[in-house]
């Protein structure tokens, strides 16, 4: 099976690209997602409404269409993004749309009594969010956040369509060179499983630790 040995390194390199993109995109969408969730809950009609519309657009459009609009569509307006930039931008925009809803649900799951206790102490809204609401929302959101992370890793498979050298791209390349799709896509599957099962394990460990004070 020297084909495996020959192409495994390429698959691993592709995995590195996927992980890099996912890590940046998730980190950005978590930060922006928290802010947008707070904006949606406390931001009044205009800001809240704008964020809701954004979420609906992201959730309502097929992922490939979003990616193509960013990469090909924008180029018609002389906005020529590199494959990597376009791929990353899409992952971020898509991720924010999902993260907002995860954080909104998490924040709203914290009981009114907790808000009242924070208010009664004289905490500002930001202090209450940072010290009381978000740490508790975090416990509620952890499973959804892990699902989100795995979803984003899987979404990177689409990025070969704009020419990013991810796992999928390498597997297709290997397939045309060797004409052994079963082996090539099999290796890609194994690579994705390794990544996502590792993430799930990390997730359950975190959840167990949180459970200590729940």
């Amino acid at each position: 099976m020297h084909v495996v040995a020959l192409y495994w390194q390429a698959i691993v390199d592709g995995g590195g690209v996927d992980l890099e993109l996912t890590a940046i995109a998730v980190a950005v969408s978590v930060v922006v997602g928290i802010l947008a969730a707070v904006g949606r809950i406390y931001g009044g009609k205009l800001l809240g409404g704008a964020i809701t519309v954004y979420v609906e657009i992201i959730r309502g459009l097929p992922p490939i269409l979003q990616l193509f609009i960013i990469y090909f569509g924008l180029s018609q307006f002389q906005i020529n993004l590199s494959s990597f930039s376009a791929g990353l931008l899409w992952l971020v925009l898509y991720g924010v749309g999902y993260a907002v809803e995860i954080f909104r649900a998490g924040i709203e799951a914290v009981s009114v009594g907790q808000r009242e206790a924070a208010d009664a102490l004289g905490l500002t809204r930001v202090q209450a969010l940072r010290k009381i609401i978000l740490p508790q929302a975090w416990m509620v959101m952890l499973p959804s956040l892990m699902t989100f992370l795995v979803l984003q890793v899987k979404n990177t498979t689409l990025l070969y369509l704009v020419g990013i050298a991810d796992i999928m791209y390498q597997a297709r390349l290997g397939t045309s060179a060797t004409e052994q799709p079963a082996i090539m896509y099999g290796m890609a599957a194994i690579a994705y499983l390794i990544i996502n099962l590792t993430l799930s394990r990390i997730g359950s460990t975190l959840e167990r630790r949180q459970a200590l004070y729940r």
Partner: protein
Amino acid sequence: MSSDVVVDIEGLTKRFGPRTVFEDISLQVQRSEVVAVIGPSGAGKSTFIRCINYLHPFDAGRIRVLDHELVGGGAPPSKATLRQIRMQVGMAFQTFNLFPHLTALGNVMLGPMETKRVPASDARDKAMALLTSVGLADRAEAYPRRLSGGEQQRVAICRALAMDPEVMLFDEPTSMLDPEMVGEVLGTIRGLAAQGMTLILVTHEMQFAKEVADTVVVMADGRVVEKGPARDVLEHPTSERSRTFLTRVLKPLETVEDGQEQGQHGGQESGPGATTALGGDHP
């Protein structure tokens, strides 16, 4: 007006939509005075006490806490006013509302550290002193879920006291507790009263109100139906409405069908929990 008035409430009115919860309530609370608010369920007692630190906005009237004033209707108070009032008014809730992700100690330390920028070491010392005073020094590192109801409420009281409030509000502090834990919490409150803390409490513990409160306010049907020295009101009520209420509460056996309003744990607060009182009669 005497400078010793800590809380001054005038013409307070609260509505939920078309329903009037209470109307035109006035109350002056002097420094170190203990005011017990009693009355049948649904009389608006909890809503009333929650207006004092503006957990509930109100529709008319005004509340002054020392130098800061809240006015009903119109624009909401400024954030600064609200913060000033809330930092001076401590509150213990019926459901304790401890922060579940923090230890008992963490719960008590948080307020001063966040709102007054007190250094962690100072906040810790103070929190430990407070927890020790309510007999919970050995539970300082426990998370709320590991604490009994009575312990949680005592931690919650410490959390409020850590802010050095000028007045403490108690919103039915013992009504969610198992009977055997009522005493320890009432003991703590009694200790506060003995130390001269100004207290306003909504309670169903009539015996406790009689012993500890200076003033009893009877609320019913959205009004104050009677107000006066605790013993007078509880033993010789003059208003018809409070007489009906007190008869039902003080003689629960004759009106068993009205079980919810019994709230009679009588002398239980002199049980073992009383030894955890803050100072006071404690040797």
